[in-house]
């Protein structure tokens, strides 16, 4: 909770720093603030019944773990900011401020215990993102992305609100624990109205995490937005979205099995998201679009974790998966961002010669791609394995078989990007790398390796 307060103050300060022409102050301030927020957040670990504001927010292990993860991811992304915005005259302080607002929205989404807070969290996150997606004002693609994201996003919010309203109509409360009591009282005979309500909420949240068939906005928006914002969408937003989605259902259906209709829908979504995401990624020429589809297919694996939900059983799997996926994605986008900036293109061919001119970036790309492809002993393998394990334990065998076939397909396109970095191309020039940029990427790579060699540090938190 204290982290939210600190971050709110921080974002407003950042905005002021921009207004008073003290842009240089903004970044150091943000680093200190984010680290402070992380520490404050850790302080709430193991506090029992940690409710705030009339049970609006609950900082249990789940919330604290996800908040910490979101803060760390944001911190890593801010390390990449400086070089990205160095040559731009844009009002960076505003952008930084909005990025922190996204983080605040994400933390609320991970810690809500009342449906209104869920809605507020999503809106804080989304509205900031609508602006950020269009923050390259003179670029047509950026504007298109912004409008598209806004229209689709508000559509999704409509679904969510409608679902919340239906659930409220049936249970007379927004509080998750009241809803849970209602569900327990019904003993499996849930009314049609309530079932429709939760399915509509599922759809609304699916939009945010780009799950099939609600993923169509993702590639265009990811491609059109400034790459730094795309990283945010693919990592922080996706993590927050899954945290919210999982939390909603794990609390409400703690002691009762979920309705069959809901389970079947999630099963189908998971299978189709993986497959559609993977097959679309196969045919991409641009690395950015390929990574966008990769993020769609990863949402499919995460949906398996949602499917295997039982008393927070798969929460650890989802937590670990989002962490590992986000780290690898930040690293991959980090490389892509520099290549795109220096070579003016994000097609696979722009990566040629990277291994000779920028061996460090090529190495980062290799580690992130291997991890995303799920090659042991990197963390990506364990994260997938963890999800599969959870699913098999709940008896979902076939979805795991589909997922394993899909991860084989995944290897194909991840490797294609990686191999293009090893093509010989003497004409290309060396891409300059700043120290902070390199340090962040190096740290991420080390984390990916360390989490793979010894996953136990993170896999049993929640």
């Amino acid at each position, binding site marked *: 909770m204290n982290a939210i307060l600190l971050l709110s103050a921080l974002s407003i300060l950042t905005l002021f720093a921009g207004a008073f022409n003290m842009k240089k102050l903004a970044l150091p301030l943000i680093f200190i603030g984010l680290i402070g927020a992380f520490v404050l957040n850790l302080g709430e670990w193991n506090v029992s019944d940690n409710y705030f504001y009339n049970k609006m927010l609950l900082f249990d292990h789940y919330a604290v773990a996800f908040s910490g993860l979101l803060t760390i991811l944001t911190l890593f992304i801010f390390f990449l900011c400086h070089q990205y915005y160095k040559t731009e005259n844009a009002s960076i302080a505003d952008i930084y401020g909005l990025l922190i607002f996204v983080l605040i929205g994400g933390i609320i989404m991970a810690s809500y215990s009342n449906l209104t807070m869920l809605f507020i969290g999503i809106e804080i996150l989304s509205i900031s993102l609508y602006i950020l997606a269009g923050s390259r004002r003179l670029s047509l693609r950026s504007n298109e992305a912004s409008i598209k994201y806004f229209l689709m996003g508000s559509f999704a919010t409509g679904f969510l609100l409608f679902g919340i309203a239906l659930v409220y109509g049936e249970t007379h409360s927004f509080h998750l624990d009241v809803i849970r009591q209602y569900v327990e009282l019904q003993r499996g005979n849930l009314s049609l109205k309530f079932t429709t309500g939760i399915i509509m909420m599922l759809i609304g949240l699916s939009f945010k995490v780009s799950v099939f068939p609600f993923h169509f906005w993702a590639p265009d928006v990811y491609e059109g937005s400034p790459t730094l914002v795309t990283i945010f969408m693919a990592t922080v937003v996706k993590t927050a979205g899954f945290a919210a989605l999982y939390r909603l259902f794990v609390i409400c259906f703690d002691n009762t099995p979920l309705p069959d209709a809901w389970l079947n829908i999630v099963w189908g979504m998971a299978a189709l998201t993986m497959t559609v995401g993977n097959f679309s990624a196969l045919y991409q020429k641009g690395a950015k679009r390929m990574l966008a589809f990769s993020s769609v297919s990863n949402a499919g694996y995460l949906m398996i974790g949602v499917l295997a939900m039982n008393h927070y059983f798969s929460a650890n799997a989802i937590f670990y998966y989002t962490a590992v996926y986000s780290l690898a994605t930040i690293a991959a986008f980090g490389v892509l961002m520099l290549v795109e900036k220096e070579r003016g293109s994000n097609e696979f061919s722009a990566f040629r010669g990277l291994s000779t001119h920028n061996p460090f970036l090529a190495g980062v790309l290799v580690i992130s791609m291997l991890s995303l492809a799920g090659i042991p*002993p990197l963390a990506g393998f364990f994260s997938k394995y963890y999800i599969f394990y959870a699913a098999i334990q709940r008896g979902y065998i076939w979805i795991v078989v589909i997922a394993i076939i899909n991860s084989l397909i995944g290897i*194909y396109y991840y490797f294609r990007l990686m191999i293009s970095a090893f*093509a010989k191309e003497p004409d290309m020039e060396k891409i300059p790398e700043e120290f902070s940029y390199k340090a962040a990427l190096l740290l991420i790579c080390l984390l990916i390796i360390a989490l793979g060699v010894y*996953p*136990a540090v993170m*896999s049993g938190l929640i």
Partner: protein
Amino acid sequence: MIIFLLAFPVISILFVLFGGRIAKCIAFGSSVAELIVSFVMFSHYQYNSNVQFLFDQPWIPQLGIRFTVGMDGISMLMVLLTNILIPLIILSSFKKEYSRPGLFYGLILLMQTALLGVFTALDAFAYYIFWEMALVPIYFIILMWGGDNRVKVTFKFFIYTMAGSLLMLIAIIFLFFQTTEHSFSHQAFANASSSLSPTVQGWLFWAFFIAFAIKMPVFPFHTWQPDTYTQAPPQGTMLLSGIMLKMGTYSLLRWILPIVPLGVAEWGNVAIILSLISVVYGSLIAIGQKDLKRMFAWSSIAHVGLISAGIFSLTLQGLQGSMIQMLSHGINIVGLFLVAQIIYDRTKTHTMSELGGIISKSPLFAGLFLIILLGSVALPLTDGFIGEFLLLSGIYQYNVWMAAVAGLTIILGAVYMLRAYQRTILGEMNGHTEEFAPLHWNETLVLVCIAGMVIFIGVYPQPILDLTGPAIKNIVDTINNQIYTLR
């Protein structure tokens, strides 16, 4: 001590990476130190079927995964093979200048750790991790230092082996959920599978066998192999054929025979037939090859087919022979590929018809090549003879006709190997071979070591039989008991 054995190459990678121009010396030093460590362990080894040097720690407790490594005789032999070959492979590259040597030798050492892990892991999950970990360095070695066609070829290689591994992963996860205590340990798997029906074991058998068959490779999963061997840099080919291939054959012994005995009883004959097809098919294609390196690659398919057939004969001789043949094939094939490298470095060609008359330029080279070659065609008093003789007698006990087919390998092997020798070493000199420079010191040293081992094992194979005997006997007895109780 076993942890030191596994970790030492990884630690030395750090030095090798930043070693710059002396990277190869550091890597060589480290691999020699590793060899000494494994000899020390060998000297402490007790000749019985127990697992020794056991190390067992929880790794990911939430998922029931432990880190268990240990060695019985079979593992010990494979560890020795790995640690003998790696220094030789590194030494053989001393006169070559690879770009970015730090990375190159670092990857070789990473590979060494992964291979040692595969040969010692007794927890299926750790085993799987090492199994996959071995794939990554070799992939990059070929991708970064390979021939012109490397990108396509390595891709096929990677996807192929990965597909096999994922099948194995499914089988491993399935077995995990069958164990009563939810454990990945080798023992638990063996216990769990005894309650599984022959049909289920049959499925598991195929899931494991295909993964291993791709690695070895056995017909019809061999299509990646000749191209990959040809495109890889010489050291990569040596790693692939000398050691990595043994991952497949070793795993047959470790993870198929004790774990799914009834599956073996059900499908072993099909596996033998596939292996024998590899023997004949590989030999025939090898006869038709014009390219020296490609011919060695196909000969490797033939030899490994015989090893796999011997393993599935489920006889003491067959398994003993497979152990000796794994060792000697590893030694011989590294020697042969080194020969190919030496010839290529001097003449820039692998095509046999463009070579000839090397003997008058470098009689030492011709002599050493001859010894290795005779080992490969299984002449008595060379290592190949002992292995193939035991393998054939094992297969003979299983089925006379199959032994007759398998015996073709010796005849066909003599045909292609001797013809290759005659075309490259003997005959007239020509433009390519006129300037054939004498051997460098490092090449001589490696070839002499290999030729020495070829003869030593051929004359005195008893230590190897003593080393692996108890463990082999244990495996054979267990599996035959299980099959006997079923019938």
